[in-house]
C-alpha cells in the first residue's frame, strides 16, 4: 500500500547537498500576537522592519536634507562608478553566455530527474511580470524617442536642429540608434543581472539544500559565517532594497497612473486620487497574496501577458506594420553592431547617455535583482542551467526588443512624419512628461480611448503583480527561507509596503528614498560578482 499512495512519484535524482550544521528555521521565533501566528527570522525581520521605519521617519522629518543628500548621491554614484556598473554588467552577460555553452549548462535545478514545476507559458508570464512589465509600459515610447532626439548615444546626432526643423541626413542613423540604445537597456544586460541572482538562489536551494534566502548563495565564499551577521546584513539589505524599491515605485506608479487617468478620462490629478489608487492596488494584491503563488501571482501574470500581447498586436497592426518590422530588424542589427561600443565602460564622450541612462539603469536593475532573482528562482525548479539561462536571458530580451521596436517605432514615426502635430513630440521632446508618453502615442492611433484604458489597466495589474510577488519574497527572506510561514506575515508586508508608499506620497520623500534604493545597487554589484564565483563553485561540484 505504501507504494501506491506515495505522492511524489519520481525520484528527483542525485544532488550534491551542502553539509552544514545549520537547520533551516533554527534562528526563527515562533509565536502569536493575539490571534495572528508568526514565524520570523531573528534578527532579520526586526532589523529590516525597524530600519525601514527609521528611514521613512528620516525622509519625512528631514525631508529637504534627505532629498538633498540622496538626490546628490545618485548622480555622484552613476558618474563616479559608471565604469564599474558597465564593466560588471558585461561580466554578467559573458558569464551567462558561457554557462550556455559549457558542460555546466546540463546541471538540472532540483536534481537530475527533477521535472519543471511550471509550464513554459506560466513560467514566462511570471518571469516577465516580475522582471520588467511595468517598465515596458513607461519607457516603451519615452526611451526610443528620447535617445533618438535628445541623449545622442555614441555621439549620433539628433535629427532635430535647434530651431526644431528636421535635418534629413541625420534621420536614418538617429532612428536606428534610438532603438538600439533602448534595446541595450532592456536586452541582454538586465536579464543577465537577473539570471545570475536567480540561478545562484535556485542552485543553492534546490540542489544544495540551503534555505531560500540571499545569504545562501554566499556559502561557498563565507562558509558557516553566512548564518551569522554576514548573512543577516546581506538579507537585511535585500529586504530593504526590495521594500523601498516597491514602495517608491508604487508611489510614483500611482502618480503616473493618475496622470494617465487625467489624460484619458479627465480625472483630477491629486494626492487623494493617488492614495485611492495605492489602496486599490494594495487591496487587489492582498487578495492575490491570499490566493497564493499558483492562484494569485501566476494567474495575474498570465492575464497581464495576454493583455500586453493584445496591446502589442494592436499597435503593430494598426501602426505602419511594415515600417515597424523593418525598424525592428534595423534596430536589432544596430544593437548587434554597436553592442561593444555601447557597453564599453571607459573614456566615453556620450556621458549624458552613459551616466544618466545606462549606469542609472544598471544600478536600478541590480538593486531590484534580489527581489526579481528570488522570485524567478522559486518558480524555476526542474529546468537545466542551459535551458534556464536561454529562457531568462535570450527570450525575454527578444520580447523586449520587439516591444520597444513596436512602441518606439510607431512613436518615432509619429514624431518624424508630422512633428508639428505629434503629441509624443510635445510630451517627450518639447516638455519632458514621461507618464503621458505612452498615452500620447496611442492618441495618434485609432480607438485611443479603448487602448489607453487597456494601458492603464495593464499598468495597475503589473503593479499588483509586483506588490504581490514582492511580499512573497520579503516574507520568505524575513522568515529565514521558509515558504510556509503563517499567512498573516505576507499580509503584513503587503500592507506595510502600501502604507510606506502612502506615507511617502503624502509627506514627500519618494524621490529621496528611491535614490537611496538605487544606491544599494553599488554594494549589490559586488554581491553579484561574488555570486558568479559562487555559482561556478556550486556547479563544479554538482553531479551531471
Amino acid at each position, binding site marked *: *500500500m*505504501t507504494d501506491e*499512495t*506515495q*505522492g*511524489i512519484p519520481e*525520484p*528527483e535524482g542525485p*544532488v550534491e*547537498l551542502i553539509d552544514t550544521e545549520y*537547520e*533551516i*528555521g533554527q534562528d526563527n521565533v515562533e509565536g502569536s500576537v*493575539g*490571534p*495572528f501566528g508568526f514565524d520570523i527570522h531573528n534578527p532579520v525581520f526586526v532589523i529590516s522592519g525597524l530600519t525601514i521605519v527609521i528611514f521613512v521617519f528620516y525622509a519625512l522629518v528631514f525631508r529637504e536634507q534627505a532629498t538633498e543628500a540622496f538626490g546628490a548621491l545618485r548622480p555622484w554614484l552613476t558618474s563616479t562608478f559608471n565604469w564599474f556598473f558597465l564593466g560588471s554588467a558585461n561580466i554578467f552577460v559573458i558569464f551567462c553566455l558561457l554557462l550556455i555553452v559549457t558542460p555546466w549548462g546540463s546541471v538540472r535545478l*532540483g*536534481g537530475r530527474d*527533477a521535472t519543471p*514545476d511550471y509550464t513554459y507559458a506560466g513560467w514566462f508570464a511570471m518571469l516577465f511580470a516580475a522582471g520588467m512589465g511595468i517598465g515596458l509600459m513607461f519607457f516603451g515610447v519615452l526611451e526610443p524617442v528620447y535617445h533618438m532626439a535628445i541623449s545622442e548615444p555614441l555621439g549620433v546626432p539628433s535629427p532635430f536642429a535647434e530651431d526644431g526643423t528636421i535635418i534629413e541626413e541625420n534621420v536614418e542613423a538617429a532612428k536606428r540608434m534610438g532603438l538600439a540604445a533602448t534595446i541595450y537597456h532592456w536586452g541582454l544586460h538586465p536579464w543577465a543581472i537577473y539570471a545570475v541572482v536567480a540561478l545562484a538562489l535556485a542552485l543553492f*536551494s*534546490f540542489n544544495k*539544500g*540551503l*534555505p*531560500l534566502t540571499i545569504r545562501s548563495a554566499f556559502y561557498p565564499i563565507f562558509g558557516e559565517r553566512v548564518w551569522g551577521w554576514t548573512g543577516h546584513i546581506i538579507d537585511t539589505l535585500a529586504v530593504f532594497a526590495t521594500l523601498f524599491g516597491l514602495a517608491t515605485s508604487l508611489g510614483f506608479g500611482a502618480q503616473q497612473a493618475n496622470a494617465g487617468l487625467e489624460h484619458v478620462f479627465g480625472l483630477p490629478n491629486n494626492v487623494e486620487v493617488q492614495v485611492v489608487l495605492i489602496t486599490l492596488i494594495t487591496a487587489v494584491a492582498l487578495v492575490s497574496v*491570499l*490566493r*497564493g*503563488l*499558483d*492562484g494569485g501571482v501566476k494567474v495575474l501574470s498570465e492575464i497581464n501577458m495576454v493583455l500586453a500581447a493584445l496591446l502589442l498586436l494592436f499597435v503593430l497592426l494598426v501602426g505602419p506594420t511594415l515600417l515597424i518590422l523593418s525598424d525592428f530588424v534595423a534596430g536589432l542589427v544596430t544593437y548587434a553592431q554597436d553592442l561593444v561600443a555601447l557597453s564599453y565602460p571607459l573614456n566615453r564622450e556620450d556621458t549624458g547617455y552613459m551616466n544618466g541612462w545606462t549606469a542609472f539603469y544598471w544600478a536600478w536593475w541590480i538593486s531590484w535583482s534580489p527581489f526579481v532573482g528570488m522570485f524567478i528562482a*522559486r*518558480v524555476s*525548479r526542474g529546468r537545466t542551467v542551459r535551458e534556464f539561462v536561454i529562457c531568462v536571458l535570450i527570450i525575454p530580451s527578444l520580447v523586449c526588443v520587439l516591444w520597444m521596436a513596436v512602441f518606439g517605432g510607431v512613436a518615432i514615426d509619429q514624431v518624424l512624419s508630422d512633428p508639428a502635430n505629434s503629441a509624443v513630440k510635445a510630451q517627450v521632446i518639447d516638455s519632458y512628461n514621461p507618464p503621458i508618453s505612452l498615452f500620447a502615442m496611442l492618441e495618434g492611433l485609432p480607438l485611443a480611448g479603448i487602448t489607453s484604458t487597456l494601458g492603464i489597466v495593464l499598468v495597475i495589474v503589473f503593479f499588483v503583480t509586483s506588490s504581490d510577488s514582492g511580499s512573497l519574497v520579503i516574507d520568505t527572506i524575513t522568515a529565514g*527561507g*521558509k*515558504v*510556509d*510561514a*503563517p*499567512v498573516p506575515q*505576507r499580509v503584513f508586508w503587503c500592507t506595510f509596503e502600501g502604507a510606506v508608499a502612502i506615507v511617502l506620497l503624502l509627506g514627500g520623500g519618494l524621490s529621496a528614498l528611491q535614490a537611496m534604493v538605487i544606491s544599494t545597487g553599488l554594494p549589490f554589484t559586488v554581491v553579484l560578482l561574488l555570486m558568479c564565483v559562487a555559482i561556478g563553485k556550486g556547479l563544479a561540484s554538482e553531479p551531471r
Partner: protein
Amino acid sequence: MFTRIMVPVDLTHIDRLQKALRCAADLAKLYSLPVIYVGVTTALPGKLAHTPEEYTDLLAAFSAEQGADEGIETGFHAILSHDPAVELDPALIRAAAELQADLIVMASHIPNLMDYVWPSNGGTIASHAKASVFVVRV
C-alpha cells in the same frame, strides 16, 4: 462503516497532533481500517528536509512507526505544493478524493477571533471534502 482513514500530519508539530493520532489509531483498530498519513511539503529546503525525497522518507518512517506502535495498517502520501501556506486545504481535499479516504481525522487549532475572517483548515475541509471529517480539538 468506513474503508480508509486519512490523517493530515504536520511533521514539524507532531506534539500538537497526539490526540488526533490517538483517535485515528483507535478508530482504525475498532473498524480494522488502514490509516494513511498525509503530509504537505515544498520543493524548497525546509526545517525538516532539504529535498522532497528526504521529506517523503521522513513521512514513510513516521507512518511505519505509527503502524508498529499501534498495530495498525498504515500508509503515507506526500503532497508537493508550491505554496503550502495557502494551498493546504484544497491540496488535502484533493488528496482525500485521490486516496479514496472516507474519513478524515485531523487536529484543530485553538479557535480564535480570526476564524471569522480566516477560515480554519479543519473548518474548510469539513465543509468541502466529500469524506466525513473528525476535527479533534487540541
